[in-house]
């Protein structure tokens, strides 16, 4: 596995990065037809700026993960799970994702989409001896199929009007508004299910954590972006000219996902589940930016629409970087301590200094703090929302700032969530034997983590370069280049105009470092440089032990109480025979009871009715088939 698959992954990733970058920079549009399809359904592929960007994203994450994987999978060698299966399905999964972004026809798209979904199912159930992994895999497979069906129907609507399954034919078709909205709704449902939008996110926090960590990184960092790509391609490219009502839908769904995602992330104790819920949040932010873009383009503000679009793409890129970093960091912790529960960790920073440093940088990025990358894309989203005054409708002028306030709330809770993650896992003192025995991970893993965090910093400090690179995509899809954003040189980011707002990440970063340097230089001189070590003071309570520290559950308690209406919280304190109280806390996703279970019961009930058809007699089955055939023939004629 390590000898064959990983070098192959690396080679494919390098090609993807080079091809994607070239396509993005030179705004190529290369088409080809692979000899794979059916005679009347050719397998067309096309490499343009949009697919180039996503291809580059896939390649970049994959390439950096190849440094991580060899050391990480070594652990599985002694286990009972088959490594060839892991390697093989990883390869197929990557190929599927790359084919999805390259597809230039509904046929090729759907086949690659299903390849991607199925192979990732096998990756989710890689450790299938655990029942919860099998359950997660089942939910994932089920929802992936429902989503796939919806996308297929969406393409069906397009194909009916475009008279063909090639994307060119669909692009040329003009749909009546109603049918366009139906197609959009189907696509939003299908791609939203894959992307983990509320309320169809249930598979995501189940499936992402149980896969091996580098696969979790690929699924969260890359596969969700492929779903975003699907929606972009479908709505902006094939349908074209989004209506402002779609923008409102995207904006509201995005805001709900962002807020709910981050609140649930805050409540988690399992480090990988926490990260999975945070993916729901970030996808929500991407959809909010897309919604803003659609709103502005539907009301006749193409330049503002472009800013929102760039914000969405930028956040997609950023999320790929920091979420991969965080999942790989969680994997490193898992590798070193064999713990996923935050409450069993603690003090890891002193045992794993490099991992600790890189994860800290990831936490800063994901909490949208300057000068890292997460901040830039949220800043762009805020700037777009603040252009609400250009709207004619007073309702929209109110709606946009309110959703921006939701975004602010989301960002602040995300910061709290990652303070919790980092503070509980890496700071303080070890809460378990495993955490005490943790050792730094091998060089390859550290290298991978380090390069991801470097990417996060670079994307945060040099936003103008990234945005001018993204100009190709917006030019292709919206006919706008966002030239004014970078008009004042590489130092200045001015999305609307220099008077409205500007941000100079390099100078701000340099200034902060300068002040730090001066403060440190002035204060750490002479006699006072010496530092004495001693016991913690703790208000004079004497040496506290590790169990007296705040736990993840305790840290989230105020938040849990303030937002108690949104959760199903069950707390109980029981005393066992020795009268030692045990505190148990279970938090459920309320949507699970109010949305999924009723649907499940409905399906069950209707299945019980339909089961009557299954009498066991072959002749009756044949009769049904005959009747279907006759009806279909009648319909066609």
């Amino acid at each position, binding site marked *: 596995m390590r000898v064959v698959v990983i070098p192959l992954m690396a080679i494919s990733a390098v090609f993807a990065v080079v091809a994607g970058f070239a396509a993005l920079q030179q705004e190529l549009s290369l088409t080809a037809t692979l000899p794979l399809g059916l005679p009347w359904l050719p397998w067309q592929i096309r490499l343009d700026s949009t697919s180039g960007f996503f291809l580059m994203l896939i390649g970049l994450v994959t390439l950096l993960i190849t440094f991580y994987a060899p050391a990480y999978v070594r652990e599985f060698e002694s286990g009972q799970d088959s490594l060839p299966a892991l390697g093989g399905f990883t390869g197929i999964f990557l190929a599927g994702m790359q084919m999805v972004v390259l597809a230039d026809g509904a046929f090729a798209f759907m086949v690659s989409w299903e390849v991607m979904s199925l192979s990732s199912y096998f990756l989710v159930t890689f450790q299938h001896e655990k029942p919860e992994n099998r359950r997660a895999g089942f939910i994932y497979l089920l929802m992936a199929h429902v989503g796939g069906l919806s996308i297929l129907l969406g393409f069906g609507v397009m194909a009916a009007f475009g008279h063909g399954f090639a994307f060119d034919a669909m692009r040329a078709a003009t749909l009546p508004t109603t049918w366009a909205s139906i197609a959009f709704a189907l696509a939003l449902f299908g791609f939203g299910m894959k992307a983990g939008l509320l309320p169809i996110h249930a598979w995501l926090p189940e499936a992402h954590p149980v896969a091996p960590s580098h696969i979790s990184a690929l699924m969260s960092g890359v596969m969700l972006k492929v779903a975003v790509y699907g929606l972009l391609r479908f709505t902006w490219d094939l349908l074209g000219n989004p209506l402002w009502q779609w923008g409102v839908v995207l904006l509201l769904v995005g805001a709900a996902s962002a807020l709910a995602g981050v609140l649930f992330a805050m409540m988690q104790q399992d480090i990988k589940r926490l990260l999975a819920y945070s993916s729901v949040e970030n996808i929500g932010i991407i959809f909010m930016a897309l919604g803003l873009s659609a709103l502005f383009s539907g009301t006749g503000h193409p330049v503002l629409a472009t800013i929102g679009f760039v914000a969405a793409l930028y956040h997609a890129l950023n999320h790929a970087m920091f979420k991969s970093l965080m999942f790989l960091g969680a994997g490193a912790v898992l590798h070193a301590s064999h713990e996923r529960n935050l409450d069993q960790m603690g003090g890891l920073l002193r045992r794993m200094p490099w991992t600790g440093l890189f994860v800290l940088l990831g936490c800063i990025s994901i909490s949208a703090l300057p000068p890292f990358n997460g901040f830039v894309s949220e800043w762009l989203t805020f700037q777009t929302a603040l252009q609400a005054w250009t709207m004619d409708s007073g309702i929209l*002028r109110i709606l946009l700032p309110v959703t*921006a306030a939701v975004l602010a709330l989301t960002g*602040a809770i995300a910061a709290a969530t990652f*303070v919790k993650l980092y*503070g509980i896992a890496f700071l303080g*003192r070890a809460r378990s034997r495993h955490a005490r025995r943790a050792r730094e991970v091998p060089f390859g893993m550290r290298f991978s983590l380090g390069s991801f965090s470097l990417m996060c910093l670079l994307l945060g400090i040099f936003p103008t370069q990234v945005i001018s690179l993204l100009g190709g995509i917006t030019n292709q899809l919206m006919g706008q280049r966002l030239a004014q954003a970078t008009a004042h040189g590489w130092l200045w980011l001015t999305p609307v105009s220099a008077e*409205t707002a*500007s941000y100079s990440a390099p100078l701000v970063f340099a200034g902060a470092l300068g002040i730090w340097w001066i403060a440190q230089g002035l204060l750490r001189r002479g006699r006072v440089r*010496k530092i004495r070590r001693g016991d*913690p003071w703790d208000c004079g309570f004497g040496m506290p032990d590790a169990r007296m520290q705040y736990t993840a559950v305790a840290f989230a308690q105020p938040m849990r109480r303030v937002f108690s209406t949104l959760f199903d919280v069950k707390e109980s304190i029981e005393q066992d025979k020795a009268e030692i109280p045990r505190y148990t806390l279970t938090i459920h996703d309320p949507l699970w009871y109010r949305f999924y279970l009723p649907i499940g019961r409905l399906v069950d009930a209707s299945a019980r009715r339909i089961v009557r058809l299954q009498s066991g007699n072959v002749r009756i089955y044949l009769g049904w088939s005959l009747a279907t055939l006759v009806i279909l023939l009648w319909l066609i004629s």
Partner: protein
Amino acid sequence: MADLLNLKEWVAVLGQLLMFALAAPMLVAWVKRVKCVLQNRKGPSLLQPYRDLSKLLKKEVRVAHTASPLFRATPYLVFSAVLVAASTVPLLQVHLPTTALADVIVLVGFLALARFFLALAGMDVGTAFGGMGASREMLISALAEPAMLMAIFTLTMSAHSTNLSSVIQHVLDTGLLLRPSLLFALLALLLVAIAETGRIPVDNPATHLELTMVHEAMILEYSGRHLALMEWAAQIKLLLYGVLISNVFFPWGIAETATAPALAIGALAILAKLVTLGMVLAVSETLVAKMRLFRVPAFLNLAFLLGLLGMLSYVILETSL
């Protein structure tokens, strides 16, 4: 953007940074002094915070042996993040090159960065108090941030800019207008400032009662120059909010050109505004008692409501239909 090469402008920025750093302890001392007078006590001298800081700077640093390197880096980081934020708030003159570098959203971002590390440092030593402070601080800030941005959005909606210089210039240009939206935004920002700077009724800067402290709980383990930097950063943050509120909502007197007389008037004006604001703060702290932690969400809900009403009244009352 051409200002970048203008040395004079950068001297102004440096001067402003120094003024922020040097004047910050004075504001805290002033508030304390007024409070003492109101409570029939004899207050400390206005120079007391300076004496405290210089004493702390001379002292040896003691660090718990459970602390990680992050614990020692945090004071410097918090201090520089707060100073970067302070450099973007016009103090004496409207036009500052740094407002183009970082707009008001970046300012909020840098304050959030400082808070992020403050909370992490609180959790680093592994005591119960540190975690408690961090958890509460993050809750308060999470609820304060949307309220703050709502107030800021109300401002920027009419100024059409998030650049603080442009916002202040806009308020100056429109002259005195009784705008309900600005009134609500001002009230919202005042409440947020109280919550964010840890004043009564949200937090009590003077307490060491274990169960009521928030900010103090996080910096409990610090000593020597580390503690000095943390305290200093908190003082600068209070001054920052004071200057932000007084210069944005009452910009009159601020220098529009960089001439000596204009700057002198600007200095006097901001001094008068801060003295008044400090008195308001002291009076309100004397009248109101510290809240329970779980009353704070209602307090910040009110702040958000005010911000929202500001936005609503901007749209309903102040724009043509």
